């Protein structure tokens, strides 16, 4: 029934949000309303089972009152006009707002935005999607008899947002898709696995795997049975785009989220306009990149998506901000005010974070490395903005001898070190550029969909 559709409810409420904002601003210097609805589909196919389910939806309204010092919010499940107006009145009646403080609502802006897609998931039937995933499962299974399971995980997430303050009236419909293909193989040492994935703000056109991709997946899952533990030490390292991306994300991504500045948790704060890496190092955060998993048109505070250059030629330029931290620090906004969903507050969060591309062909980087380790596949990372330590866990690494991979594998391989030392050691940056999507937490919670990446890079790193 149309009147029960959350998206239609949101659209119907849109014209009334100004009333709620005006009510809040009777007492508070700044008021805003966010309507947020996230929903989707997930399909899981492996050799012995399948499931098809909705992605657990969230739908709710956030009423915000801000006086430049304290951000007060009411988070209400669903989209109910009476509840919104009641919540706005309650917020306004709390009192105690600092009225002298001016809070900039940003420039006047209006717009409706939608992810461009060639193959819109909403236009495909669930059966069609399931059949394609079964075909993918079968394609992998026939590649090697040591495979004990092939697991396909597909997820599509639709994020509908309407934002209003006294000068903004914005709506966006973001469609994200992702797919993971895991191959589990059996051998003398037990079970070993590898995976390949695709993530995009797009439709199904972004989810293709070539035969070579799948062959490589299975070869790695089999090859890991003979992988060794690496001798700890410092190595010449070539990072793949996925590993480069995690280094960018953990070092000058989390480390420059400016809510960390006001908590005195970020060493980067005292390195503004100072050298933090080799002159070859550029780092960006850009939510406006078309098609990337962490992209959006405006953030959860209604700030339009624009690129932010964080590091330029090795010099730290600026952090990424949400409204609270930008106001508290007196620094310009960037489009990085994001919340997990309506039930959580906004923090300064990354979108698409990556090293800028260089000029060196990847083959040339390999030659320059001569002897070292090629880190092809990341599995996780952890930030340390205060200590500027870094831990990047790679699923495996491959030996390089004489500028060429030898086929010898090590697993797992972990990069650790001091962030400026690692970035200062960069002596080559590939002319390729690739981003991959994933899930990012703030500490141990607050999940956000992001991407990270960059080119292949040559550096020195401590591995264990």
């Amino acid at each position, binding site marked *: 029934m149309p009147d029960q559709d*959350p998206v239609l409810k949101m659209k119907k409420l849109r014209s009334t949000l100004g009333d709620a904002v005006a009510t809040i601003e009777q007492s508070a210097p700044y008021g805003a309303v966010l309507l947020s609805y996230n929903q989707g589909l997930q399909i899981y196919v492996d050799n012995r*089972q399948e499931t098809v389910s909705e992605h657990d939806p969230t739908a709710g309204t956030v009423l915000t009152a801000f006086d430049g010092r304290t951000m007060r919010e009411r988070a209400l499940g669903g989209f109910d006009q009476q509840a919104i107006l009641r919540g706005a009145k309650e917020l306004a009646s709390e009192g105690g707002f600092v009225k002298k403080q001016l809070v900039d609502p940003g420039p006047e802006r209006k717009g409706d935005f939608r992810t461009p897609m060639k193959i819109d998931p909403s236009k495909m039937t669930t059966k069609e999607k399931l059949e394609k995933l079964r075909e993918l499962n079968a394609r992998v299974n026939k590649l090697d008899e040591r495979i004990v399971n092939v697991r396909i995980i597909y997820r599509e997430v639709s994020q509908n947002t309407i934002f209003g303050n006294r000068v903004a009236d914005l709506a966006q419909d973001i469609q994200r898709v992702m797919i993971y293909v895991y191959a589990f193989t059996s051998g003398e040492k037990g079970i070993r696995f590898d995976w390949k994935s695709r993530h995009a703000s797009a439709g199904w056109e972004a989810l293709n795997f070539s035969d070579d991709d799948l062959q490589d997946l299975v070869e790695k899952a089999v090859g890991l049975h003979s992988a060794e533990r690496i001798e700890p030490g410092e190595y010449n390292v070539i990072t793949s785009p996925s590993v480069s991306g995690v280094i960018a994300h953990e070092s000058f991504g989390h480390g420059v989220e400016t809510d960390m500045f006001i908590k005195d*948790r970020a060493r980067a704060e005292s390195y503004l306009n100072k050298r933090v890496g080799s002159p070859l190092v550029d780092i960006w955060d850009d939510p406006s990149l078309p098609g990337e998993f962490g992209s959006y048109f405006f953030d959860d505070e209604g700030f339009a998506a624009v690129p932010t250059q964080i590091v330029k030629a090795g010099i730290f330029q600026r952090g990424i901000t949400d409204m609270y931290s930008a106001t*508290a620090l007196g620094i310009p906004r960037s489009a990085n005010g994001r919340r997990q969903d309506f039930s959580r507050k906004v923090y300064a969060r990354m979108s698409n974070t990556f090293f800028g591309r260089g000029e060196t062909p990847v083959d040339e980087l390999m030659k320059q490395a001569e002897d070292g380790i090629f880190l092809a596949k990341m599995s996780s990372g952890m930030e340390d903005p205060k200590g500027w330590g870094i831990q990047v*866990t790679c699923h495996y690494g491959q030996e390089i001898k004489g500028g060429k991979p030898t086929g010898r594998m090590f697993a797992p391989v972990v990069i650790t070190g001091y962030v400026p030392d690692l970035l200062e050691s960069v002596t080559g940056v590939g002319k390729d550029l690739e981003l991959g999507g994933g899930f990012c937490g703030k500490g141990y919670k607050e999940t956000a969909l992001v991407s990270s990446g960059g080119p292949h890079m040559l550096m020195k790193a401590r591995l264990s």
Partner: protein
Amino acid sequence: MLNAILQSLRARDDLKAWSVRHIQTRGAQQYDLHTSTESKRSVENERFVVNVLRETPGPDGAPTCGASTVTILPGGDIDSALDSASLMAGLVHNQPYDFPSPAPMPEVQLVDKSLDADPASSAGGTLSTLKEVASDNAQVRLTAGESFAEKETVHLVSSSGIDAVQESTKLDMEWVFIAGEGEQEVEAFAQMNRRRAEDLRLEMEAGRRVQQAADLLLAGPPPTHKGPVVFRGATLAAALNTGVLQTLSAASMKYTGETQWEIGKPIFREEVKGDPLNVWANRRLAYGVGSNRFDAEGIPAQRVELIRDNVLVAFWASQRFAEYLDIPATGRFGDIELAPGPTPAQELLSIPHVEIVEFSWFNPDTITGDFSCEIRLGYVVDGEKRTPFKGGMLVGNLLDALANVRWSSETGFFGNYLGPTTALFNELTVVGGN
């Protein structure tokens, strides 16, 4: 609305089984910065999670089953959601199984009454305690604190006759102590979650973090060490909740061939040189964060013996995988419980060792158990002398480490873990900076 959903489900003849969980949450969140409050939020949410099971003849005509889950929000279109669930379930072809039958639900202590009565006061109260600790310790300053207090009520009704309610509370906290000045500043970051405020033991825990921050200021470079390594308290609890034992003892993983553990066989690949390992998956642990009266399927809380004297005695299993493997259904894993060892902690700690108290992230591979993790704070301990260090890596394999460990006779509760307070791993490797 629950009644309307039940009415619609009962009227359908295309479903083999179904269940509905009506989940209501209400809570308060407070975010403090230094001595002021950055944000205060009140949060309410309600949803209905519907699981359906259909018989779906497979391509060869053999009987198969398909399950699906949809979530209906208040005011949502019930019939459309149930049609969608039925359609999705009808598309998949799994080996037949059923949803759980009714069984007596145990009473498990899950509610902090003060939090239930006033979540905002609970959230604010914990942050006040932190401020008091910080004001009593001049060497640190509290720069950030977050506290979430939430009450959850779940009412589960199923086609098989389950009709049960459970109430629970939880407190999620994190905070930052900064010590030192300028380039020498260090932080002690803490993250905790418990069902009851008193189980946070906040004054003691905050005091521990104050000490850590102070020690970080004095910390030297990491040693290179091969030998005894100690984990205690929350560090040990976190290491045992990284998913290795949970993954390899899962019936779902056995069914797909991703674990090679077998009932009646030792879980270790090498000779056991330390104390025997005895493990339970426990959902009955009072105020355990993984505890409940019943899980999402409606399987009553149990304390399941998984590993006895290093031998796997059971897999933990949902109804579906229990039927597939013809083993008892235990429900979700819940919290992990380990049997105590024979040795007092004091005796274990008298051996010269390295103690690790903080990692960047202790994240072993859940299939192989291999790990290599950066150390944020450790100590070289020799008798009464504790020399702090930071950096370096702990390298090893969790399963091999558990085959060569001595457990303390004292036990403690750390939210998601009940067991020995101290573990002395006889042979682990710390890789120093050089």
